[in-house]
């Protein structure tokens, strides 16, 4: 009973003094601290636990909670621990999102330190209500042809050529269920007879509007025109061995 007034006095004094300004130790200011802190924790976590709880670690390490298993949790009536400042590592600066694939593929465990795998789906499986401000900047729809013709990134990693590109182009009147030669590509007067180079360079763009039947009108071996679509390095025998049915689409029963 006699201790209660002392506790009350202490609490009142603490309240009067205001919040304590926490000062991070000097080690936290090192340039490579973010990169080395895991090693330091594995060597001796007791010093870290003076200030940090498991919840603090999970602020970032939600994808690998086991790294915080040795820390105390912030139980009821205890301090919540010194919060950590979340920020992306320096490697993520300057267009990292466009070029993260090689590192993410080679060393996915590094990414898993902070990222949960299902979160990748937020970008890699964009939803129909995602407006500007996501992966693509506002207004990207207007200028997407320039990025799509010579793939600025691999569009197909997130967008289905049929379910997304062609589906929208059909609704916009760009993909037609009629014979070719209607004059859409009007900036090149003889585009129909000279489209070969454009097609080989940006075939993914072509097939976002054109169906196989469009091309087979002239390029099928069983048709009247029989224009050969194969390039100079085309290995017919190799493809035939893998999937002869594909060859039969144009060559019929007489696959050479």
């Amino acid at each position: 009973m006699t201790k209660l007034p002392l506790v009350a006095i202490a609490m009142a004094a603490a309240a009067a003094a205001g919040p304590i300004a926490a000062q991070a130790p000097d080690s936290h200011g090192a340039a490579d601290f973010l990169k080395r802190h895991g090693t330091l924790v594995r060597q001796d976590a007791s010093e870290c636990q003076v200030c940090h709880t498991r919840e603090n670690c999970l602020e970032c390490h939600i994808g690998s909670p086991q790294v915080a298993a040795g820390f105390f949790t912030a139980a009821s009536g205890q301090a919540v621990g010194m919060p950590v400042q979340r920020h992306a590592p320096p490697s993520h600066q300057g267009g990292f999102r466009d070029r993260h694939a090689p590192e993410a593929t080679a060393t996915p465990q590094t990414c898993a330190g902070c990222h949960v795998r299902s979160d990748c789906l937020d970008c890699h499986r964009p939803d129909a209500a995602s407006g500007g401000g996501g992966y693509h900047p506002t207004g990207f729809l207007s200028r997407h042809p320039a990025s799509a013709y010579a793939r600025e990134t691999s569009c197909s990693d997130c967008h289905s050529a049929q379910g997304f590109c062609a589906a929208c182009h059909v609704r916009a009147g760009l993909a037609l269920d009629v014979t070719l030669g209607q004059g859409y590509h009007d900036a090149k007067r003889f585009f129909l007879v000279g489209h070969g180079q454009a097609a080989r360079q940006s075939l993914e763009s072509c097939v976002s509007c054109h169906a196989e039947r469009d091309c087979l009108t002239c390029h099928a071996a069983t048709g009247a025109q029989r224009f050969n679509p194969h390039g100079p390095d085309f290995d017919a025998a190799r493809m035939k061995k893998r999937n002869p049915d594909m060859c039969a689409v144009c060559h019929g029963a007489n696959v050479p």
Partner: protein
Amino acid sequence: MTSAGRCAATLIAGLAWTAPLHGQGYRLRLDTRMQSVAYRGWALDSVLASTVVVGPTGGLVSPDGIAVTCDGAAYCSLFRPGPKRSSLPLVGTADLSVWGFGVPGLRLQAKVRGLGDVENRDIWPGVRPTLQLLDGYAEYVTAPLTVEAGRTHVTTRFGFRGFDGGRLELRPFGRLLRLSAYGGWSLARGLDLPVTSPELNPLGDYQPTDRQIVAGGWVAWSVPRFGGRIGYQREDDPSTNGTTFERAALDAHAAISGEVSLAGGADYDLTSGDWGSADVALSYVRQSRRVAVGGRRYRPYFDLWRIWGAFSPVAYSAAWASGAFSPAVGVDVRVRGEFYQFDDPGVSVALVSVEDDGWRWSVGASMARVERWTFNAAVHQERGAGAASFGYEGQATFDPSSFLALTAHGARTRRPLEFRFDDSKAWSYGMRADLRPRADTRIYADVQRYDETRERGDAAALSWNQVRINLGATFAVGSGADHRPLHPAILRIPDARRPR
């Protein structure tokens, strides 16, 4: 019931069955978004050849002044500006993770998306089917082992591929060596639907009758300063017994020093005997400075249940450089440039000249030197095959409190096409409010006006505008120590909110 529905029902039943177990934990994120959008396309039309006249630029035009194409038939064709079409797609996503079933290391994961159009119009792509299972699997993880069964994904050099099946990963020496194998019924590329789905055939093209069987695996290693992975994947069509995909790939990452790293990889197409895409990047990172140079080669690939792989698409090779640095406290600058050149396509027609190289660059800056204000601006330009673009954008964000951010933004874009007279100019400007009333709740609203002008030398030129509205809310709930606030990584990957 669809396979996605069956998987979801099984998962929910599993969750209900395991609910009473002691020590169960869960994490649930609910994400709801809606946008109001509109667009204008083109509409094919025809007029009697006898009615066309010579237009002011010397070409043939319809009586109302739109350029026509005549091939000697009784009718000439033309493309009129299409109707204004608007849509209100609404999407809700639930991401649920549950663990603590009395078996340490066992976890159930599901990500389900419900979609629809409030106006019930078939205008905006990607709103069908109305229920989609993005992932839904059971996972068992111990130190040397990971086993997954259900609808899952693998991330490889071949892309982000989903399938219904299983995955096994062994780690006999910890992080030093990882061996993985996976297989199952494949989902389409870029979408978590089977290739047999009608949503994947808007052009009425050939479509497989059965789903492909995917199988693959990789060997990965990670020693201090050096990690890498060698992978293999193939897909077979059970209805034709043909192989539709077969590739091998190598990825590697080397930390040359604490500040310099080298990353890259390549893949080889075993079905065509061609090298596929490849890239290499040398990066220097020191505190707030990052400089990277690299090269990449991009060759599209097409599954062999379609004919496009036989049309010999060519690759392009690119060299690029990028940098990010802070010239002053609170100021970040980002620059990037790239040049690319297509391989010789082996075909050319003198009557049609086509661009075979191009370049693109962008410069952006962020400033956070004024209390509660952040400013972003960026300029970008690209010119090359098919199309070009030039634009700039900017935004100013005011944070009056820790739970509210107000942003004014604007952008200007100019985009000419190479194969069609359609030089588009667009202005967009608007306001956005981000509200975070709690650490686990985020609500946003964005309203912007969009003005577009399409320049042509005939009466098909047009100007039109619209107001686009984006609304969204995200909630995260959970149990125990894993109850977390919204992690920045789940809001967007780090620099995604900045203009480029």
